[in-house]
């Protein structure tokens, strides 16, 4: 009886699969398959509007592809032949002309740009959108302030197609900051009609609907399940994209994502374990592109205000005790740029990220620890559970290595939702974290991570007047175009960061993308999300 039932179920399976085996599609489906790009990732957006409250990182991808900005970046080619955004060359998007003055920049808008509902794009929409960005608070306002864009008064409508941004002070980052995702141009008339007293900026409407002039619009969003994008055939911000439809599906299990790619049932994924990327590179069924994070570093941070890590010798001991190469091999599978082990005589460059001179040397570590006088150190080693795939094996390897110099650690997994809070408390003695900035400049990174004033990303609670001086000097020099002073200050800040070693850089991660061989047009952007506009299939 059991055998009969088993055979029954197997026959049912084969009968069902005989109806349509994977390779055979009905003509209608084959057509739509060809015109659609299917992306799979672990999680999806919780909000389609980057100005929204608590919008997560996948939400940025929806915003990037559905809205235009005044300017964007030209593409150059990196060492691997991948198109890479050129941080120094801007490209017109909604603005067809840009005139940078001494204390302001003026944009001439395209006259033919229309929003997806047909309304023409005017300077009033631009002002409303930028006012919104600096007023709603949270991440968007913070990002705008990184380029000294903080007050609605800075944004002026000259006429319907002319728009001016006034500078509060000279800042090299102001113009680049206008090309990031946040200052997107929203259909102000449409959204204002949906606003209410409690919701003057219409955030509830834009959470669920895209109201932009971009190349794509969201036609269907089932939170946690899929997002469907359709091409805006009236897009004026660039050449018409080749892909008519993009379906972004959430598939929680990493093994299944890989299986889908290998069997050809999905087109693109950037969300696989490093090991899978490394292996898929060699098996040539798929195209894998790996690009280093611009301005991004995974590091081991220490709280420098409290014992035991307030002692420089202890910090240096830890820096010598980390199993750097093991991490590169067993966790990253070589898919990262080492930030350690620079030769002892190498000069400090004017660049960031750059490697420090520490490498694994347990004897040196033990000596330093002994000479510091600290003994029987026992601390929790914390990390963000949301990135456990990488953080956990690194923690295990570090724990093992530290044990060999007499430092005991317990692994403390902090749920993703709680990670920010824990970081902000500045009480965790030892923790793994990653930071990267959209604006690829050393002083930008240091400003957020090492400056005593900006506490949020200075997770080590590092207070150093000397460092502050270097950072402030570099920013001023950049604003004034004083290259000599800039170079001196940047070298100074990097040197001090490595001497004081409040955080120990481990590696610069890669952004990895796996695609079917018939997909082309992947571009690396500073936000590391996918830009659908350049993709082509077949």
């Amino acid at each position, binding site marked *: 009886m059991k055998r009969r039932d088993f055979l029954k179920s197997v026959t049912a399976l084969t009968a069902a*699969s005989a109806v349509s085996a994977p390779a055979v599609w009905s003509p209608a489906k084959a057509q739509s398959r060809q015109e659609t790009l299917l992306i799979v990732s672990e999680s999806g957006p919780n909000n389609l509007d980057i100005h929204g409250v608590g919008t997560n990182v996948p939400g940025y991808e929806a915003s990037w592809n559905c809205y235009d900005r005044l300017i964007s970046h030209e593409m150059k080619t990196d060492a691997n032949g991948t198109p890479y955004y050129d941080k120094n060359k801007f490209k017109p998007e909604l603005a067809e002309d840009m005139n940078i003055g001494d204390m302001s920049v003026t944009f001439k808008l395209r006259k033919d740009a229309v929003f997806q509902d047909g309304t023409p794009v005017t300077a009033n929409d631009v002002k409303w959108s930028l006012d919104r960005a600096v007023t709603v608070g949270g991440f968007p306002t913070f990002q705008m302030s990184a380029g000294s864009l903080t007050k609605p008064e800075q944004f002026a409508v000259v006429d319907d197609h002319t728009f001016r941004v006034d500078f509060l002070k000279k800042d090299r980052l102001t113009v680049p900051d206008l090309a990031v995702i946040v200052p997107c141009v929203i259909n102000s008339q449409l959204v204002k009609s949906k606003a209410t007293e409690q919701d003057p900026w219409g955030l509830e409407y834009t959470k669920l609907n895209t109201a932009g002039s971009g190349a794509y619009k969201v036609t269907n969003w089932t939170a946690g399940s899929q997002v469907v994008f359709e091409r805006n055939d009236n897009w004026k911000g660039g050449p018409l994209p080749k892909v008519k439809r993009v379906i972004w599906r959430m598939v929680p299990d990493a*093994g299944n994502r890989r299986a*889908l790619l290998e069997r050809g049932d999905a087109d693109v994924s950037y969300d696989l374990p490093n090991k899978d990327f490394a292996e898929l590179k060699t098996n040539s069924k798929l195209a894998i592109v790996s690009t280093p994070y611009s301005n991004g570093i995974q590091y081991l941070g220490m709280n420098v205000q409290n014992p035991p890590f307030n002692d420089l010798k202890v910090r240096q001991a830890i820096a010598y005790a980390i199993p750097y190469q093991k991490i590169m091999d067993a966790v990253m599978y070589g898919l990262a740029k080492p930030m350690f082990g620079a030769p002892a005589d190498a000069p400090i460059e004017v660049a960031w990220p750059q490697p420090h001179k520490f490498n694994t040397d347990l004897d040196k570590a033990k000596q330093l620890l002994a000479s510091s006088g600290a003994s029987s150190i026992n601390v929790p080693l914390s990390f963000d559970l949301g990135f456990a795939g990488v953080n956990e094996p690194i923690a295990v390897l570090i724990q093992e290595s530290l044990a060999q110099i007499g430092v005991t650690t317990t692994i403390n997994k902090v749920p*993703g939702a*709680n990670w920010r809070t824990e970081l902000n408390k500045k009480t965790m003695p030892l923790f793994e974290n990653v930071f990267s900035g959209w604006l690829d400049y050393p002083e930008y990174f240091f400003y957020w991570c090492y400056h005593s004033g900006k506490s949020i990303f200075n997770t080590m609670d590092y207070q150093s007047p000397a460092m502050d001086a270097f950072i402030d000097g570099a920013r001023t020099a950049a604003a004034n175009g004083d290259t000599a002073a800039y170079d001196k200050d940047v070298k100074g800040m990097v040197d001090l960061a490595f001497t004081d070693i409040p955080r120990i850089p481990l590696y610069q991660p890669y952004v990895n993308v796996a695609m079917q061989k018939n997909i082309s047009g992947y571009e690396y952007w500073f936000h590391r999300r996918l830009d659908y506009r350049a993709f082509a299939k077949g």
Partner: protein
Amino acid sequence: MLTMILKRAGMAIPSLIGVVIVTFLLTRALPGDPAAYFAGPAATPQAIEQVRVKLGLDKSLIAQFGNYVVDLAHGNFGTSLTTGQPVVSELITRLPASAELTLLGLLVSIIIAVPLGILAATKPNSLIDHACRIATTLGVSLPVFFTGLILVYVFYYQLGWAPAPLGRIDVFFDPPPAYTGFYLIDSLIAGQPETFMAALKQLILPALTLGIFSLAPIARMTRASMLAVLSSDFVRTARASGLASYTVIVTYAFRNAMLPVITTLGMVFSFLLGANVLVEKVFAWPGIGSYAVEALLASDFAPVQGFVLTMAVMYVALNLLIDVLYGVIDPRVRLEA
């Protein structure tokens, strides 16, 4: 009958209240600060405080609970932080997905386990009996997510028999119009046989995973119940009267043995609703299980509370249904009650 139903429903109210209170407290005890999460990665402590006030989290627990109950009374289950949608609408769309999967899994399990149990009961302590016991126990001895992953690996990745584990229906199919939310039923109502087949194909592997996991209790209870019935007088009489073996077993014995099996089915169903969460994660199934798990890990109160309350109500309703079924099948129960 009606009084019995009302009485039972009334007895269940305190449990439901208990569930609401415990869930409320439990979600508040979760680590993670929704205000910090909401305020975003770059928020200053002041910004976080502002968000906390906006979310109403600065009030005392009692006040928050009061607000929650008032909202509940209006059918407002709150909004999810992770998806940004109202919990009620998400529960409405996701519940049929889980229910369809669980019911189909139960069906698969019944189809395999009940005949096995009957067979084992007719030949107690034989090789077949032991083999049945071993087979069903093996099914329940593996973690359910592991069974699921192995099935995907063998039947999708290696053999290509099963479709891609991408959810309820193939990406290039439009789902059927939502009459009940059950794709199988809706596609039949709308007269779309292709959609029906597509939905069925996606259901096979996850239903099989759930089914394997629930074979053991059903088979065991069927066997036990059949054994008890097969040794009873009326069966002996039937055999003595010369009735065919098949008639005796199926027409007489099984019908009488059904009662305890049905109770077990109820228990198994509610157990499966919980085990669902893991299967949904493996198969990217857009059900309430995966919804609740993601919310729980993000310390997102509202969906977890909504999910637990919905499940509790369903559990109570299910038990009620079973009691009614009991009464229908066995008049003795009805008369005694």
